[in-house]
């Protein structure tokens, strides 16, 4: 009778490999447990209305549980409440809701922490040079969605930059910041943004990127002017192409997340809840289940714990 | 007698082309004034200036001796000048009744009309049908059919009927029979005579000399953007008119006045 258990997974987009893998993990787990899975997504990162539509659809189709990566962590709360009122288990994946307890459980990485790790690594790698670094920030898009802001601000924190308002970037006055530009999270945007910032300051030596495709684009821009070997590129995600890029020296370090785990844990929790009503318990001492972030680099530094690219390969997801 | 509608020194440039070149014009009460001239002489531009469809660069227009400024065709309509343009100016997708009342719709009486501004479709249809029948122009089967389903002749008929029905001071017709067959042209000439019989003066632009000489009281000959002369059809032949307007013959001095 397990076929009767319906689970939903709602992601921000279905074009980003991160979410593609997340869905894959969920459908694998659902298949193993003999459950049905429906997956939904927005068109672009930040497309909140589609997620509302999706949750309503799940309520209408009588789902037992919903796995949700929210585009807008506070705005989605009303819809989540509606689902919970209908007796549906709602689990936030990857991105905690605001407030965290708006969901029944959260399996997530901490995007701010992900940023912080690469920030600390970059600072430590540069050593004394960090004091007069020239840093470029390659962000997501002009609407400044929360993941982008959290990672960006986390990086600054880790690097030792005063972040001012933690909810937005661009308000800092640290002279080491060359500038922010947007990439749409893809290679093309990464390259153009990198070129723009390089014209502004050709001496850039640290590049923060929102994700690994943007990092790959930035690398192409640096390679075009022959500076690919004297600039540190850091990124977030830990997808297989990204980790491979760490191994190839394209990216210096990346913060790896575990979307497959999140999804698998989420599906298992829904199955558990549907069969006997047990609710998942958070990690000890935290208000969510941390699926962990690990720094992947082949140039480890003392200050930050990390795994090698080879270890990263075994855990990667794309 | 003061002219009911007159213009002095009208000038209109289109880029490098001078369509009106210090043109004068007079229309007297109760008359049919024909305007003739070669293609591109500036006839349509002249009547557009008189009816507010084009704003002249220079010059003055007077209605009943008072200077007026028409910024839009709507202004001229309110002053009682109705025009059938060469291009007809109809909305093809809208009904005959809609087109006849465009810009001067009738509202329902009472609350619905005054406050909610609801149109009185029934009354407009009745009036439109009456006008079309009155003028005996043609039998329109359905007053609500879109204008685009009418033949070219019927369309021109509706435009002329609209002008005749609402023109209280002046009716202007720009080549109303150009695309019309023999029978249909005939009906328009009769209509012109009907309107004149009501005492309303008419400006008629036409390339058809027999028609012009049949209905006109005076003929304004337009050449190279200005009035060349005004002739009396009773004292002049069509050959003269054609010779003047094509520049084959120069008009005698005295013809310039009425």
């Amino acid at each position, binding site marked *: 009778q397990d076929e009767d258990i319906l689970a939903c997974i709602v992601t921000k987009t279905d074009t980003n490999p991160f979410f593609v893998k997340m869905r894959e993990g969920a459908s694998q787990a659902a298949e193993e447990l003999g459950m049905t899975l429906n997956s939904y997504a927005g*068109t672009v990162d930040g497309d909140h209305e589609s997620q509302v539509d999706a949750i309503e659809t799940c309520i209408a189709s009588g789902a037992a549980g919903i796995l949700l990566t929210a585009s807008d962590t506070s705005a989605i709360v009303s819809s989540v409440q509606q689902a919970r009122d209908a007796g549906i288990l709602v689990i936030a994946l990857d991105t905690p809701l605001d407030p965290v307890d708006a969901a029944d459980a959260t399996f997530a990485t901490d995007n701010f922490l992900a940023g912080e790790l690469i920030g600390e690594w970059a600072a430590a790698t540069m050593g004394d040079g960090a004091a007069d670094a020239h840093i470029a920030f390659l962000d997501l898009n002009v609407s400044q969605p929360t993941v982008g802001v959290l990672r960006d601000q986390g990086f600054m924190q880790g690097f030792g930059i005063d972040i001012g308002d933690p909810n937005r970037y661009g308000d800092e006055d640290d002279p080491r910041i060359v500038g922010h530009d947007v990439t749409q999270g893809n290679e093309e945007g990464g390259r153009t943004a990198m070129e723009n910032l390089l014209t502004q300051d050709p001496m850039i030596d640290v590049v923060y990127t929102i994700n690994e495709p943007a990092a790959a684009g930035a690398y192409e821009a640096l390679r075009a002017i022959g500076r690919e070997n004297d600039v540190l590129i850091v990124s977030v995600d830990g997808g297989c192409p990204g980790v491979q890029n760490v191994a190839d020296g394209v990216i210096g370090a990346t913060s790896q997340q575990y979307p497959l785990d999140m999804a698998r844990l989420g599906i298992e929790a829904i199955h558990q809840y549907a069969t006997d009503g047990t609710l998942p318990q958070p990690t000890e001492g935290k208000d969510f289940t941390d699926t962990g972030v690990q720094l992947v680099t082949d140039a480890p530094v003392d200050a930050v714990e990390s795994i090698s690219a080879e270890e990263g390969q075994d855990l990667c997801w794309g | 007698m003061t002219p009911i509608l007159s213009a002095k020194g009208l000038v209109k440039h289109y880029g490098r082309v001078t369509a009106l070149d210090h043109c004068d014009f007079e229309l007297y009460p109760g008359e049919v004034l024909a305007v003739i001239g070669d293609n591109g002489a500036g006839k349509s531009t002249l009547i557009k200036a008189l009816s507010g469809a084009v704003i002249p660069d220079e010059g003055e227009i007077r209605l009943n001796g008072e200077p007026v400024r028409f910024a839009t065709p709507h202004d001229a309509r309110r002053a009682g000048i109705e025009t059938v343009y060469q291009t007809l100016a109809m909305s093809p997708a809208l009904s005959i009744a809609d087109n006849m009342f465009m810009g001067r719709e009738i509202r329902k009486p009472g609350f619905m009309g005054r406050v909610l501004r609801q149109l009185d479709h029934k009354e407009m249809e009745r009036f439109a049908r009456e006008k079309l029948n009155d003028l005996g122009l043609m039998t329109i089967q359905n007053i609500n059919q879109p204008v685009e389903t009418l033949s070219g002749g019927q369309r021109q008929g509706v435009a002329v009927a609209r002008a005749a029905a609402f023109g209280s001071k002046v009716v202007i017709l720009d080549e109303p029979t150009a695309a019309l067959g023999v029978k249909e042209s005939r009906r328009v000439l009769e209509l012109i005579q009907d309107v004149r019989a009501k005492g309303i003066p008419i400006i008629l632009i036409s390339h058809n000399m027999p028609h012009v000489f049949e209905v006109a009281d005076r003929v304004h000959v337009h050449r190279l953007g200005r009035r060349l002369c005004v002739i009396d059809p009773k004292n002049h032949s069509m050959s003269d008119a054609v010779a003047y307007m094509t520049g084959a013959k120069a008009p005698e001095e005295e013809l310039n006045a009425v």
Partner: protein
Amino acid sequence: MTGESDYETSVRERRTETPAEFGSRRAGLMTRVQNTLHATPALVPLIVLIASIAIFGLLIGDRFFSPFSLTLVLQQVQIVGIVAAAQSLVILTAGIDLSVGAITVLSSVVMGQFAFRYGIPVPLALACGLGCGALCGAINGTLVAKMKLPPFIVTLGTWQVFLATNYLYSRNETIRAQDIQAEASLLQLFGAKFQIGGAVFTVGVVFMVVLVLGLAWILRSTAWGRHVYAVGDDAEAAQLSGVNADRTLIGVYTLAGLICGFAGWALIGRIGSVSPTSAYEANIESITAVVIGGISLFGGRGSILGTLFGALIVGVFSLGLRLMGADAQWTYFFIGVLIIAAVAVDQWIRKVSA
């Protein structure tokens, strides 16, 4: 009269004539169907709508064919439906408004920020938001009517300008639903629900329906409405027949902006919060609804009721496909096919001139 020949004699005396009648064609069933559909343009999308409800009902069963799900479609299309009503007005004048989504979200941000950032009383903040929408629309209208710029380009430009203004002004801050509920619940008015049986309605849904019916009445029964059609049909002809085409155009764009302002209010009701990243795709979605609803992009033809049906068709398709578990990309794929198919059917019907 000099030298006129008398060949016109036979048409000089008026004879009683019946209008020329061509042999009426024996209409086949197909042709008769075509003719009926031609006469009532909103009928096509209505039929498509009913057919798609029936098909999904058969395929999915009760989960779809229930009062709850069917009214859910209404809730899901309300924002697009309201924006599409604005878009319809603009498209009826042979224009297009790419900035509707930007106006919608900017208005909602103004409502929210005025109330929260400056502490302005909520009703006043609402009025400012609606005013902002109308102002944006008026800017579009003025550029189109007075500077004679093509609507596509004007609104392509203002889309970017309004959206950038939205991001810059809002500082990308979301105002949380909880805060709005506590301090300015009037902002969420359009989200208020009431239930009739299993059917769930919101104030926003009622607003959408009333708005469309109201606009349909205005377009049919007032002089302004006829002028909108006339301007879209042939702007120059309308101007020559005594319609103030510029004023009509500015009016249409301003009203469209105001309606987008209301859509912004409804947006707050629907999502609870004020989020500057909302309504991102409203321009394309609203154009899709209008087009599926059978309004001609060339202006002057079509009925605004069709737009409502068009929005509902997309809503039914989206919900139906989602309930069937189709993934998002397949949904886009089918919506793409649906757009082309709907217009192909429409074109086929329009081929018959009545």
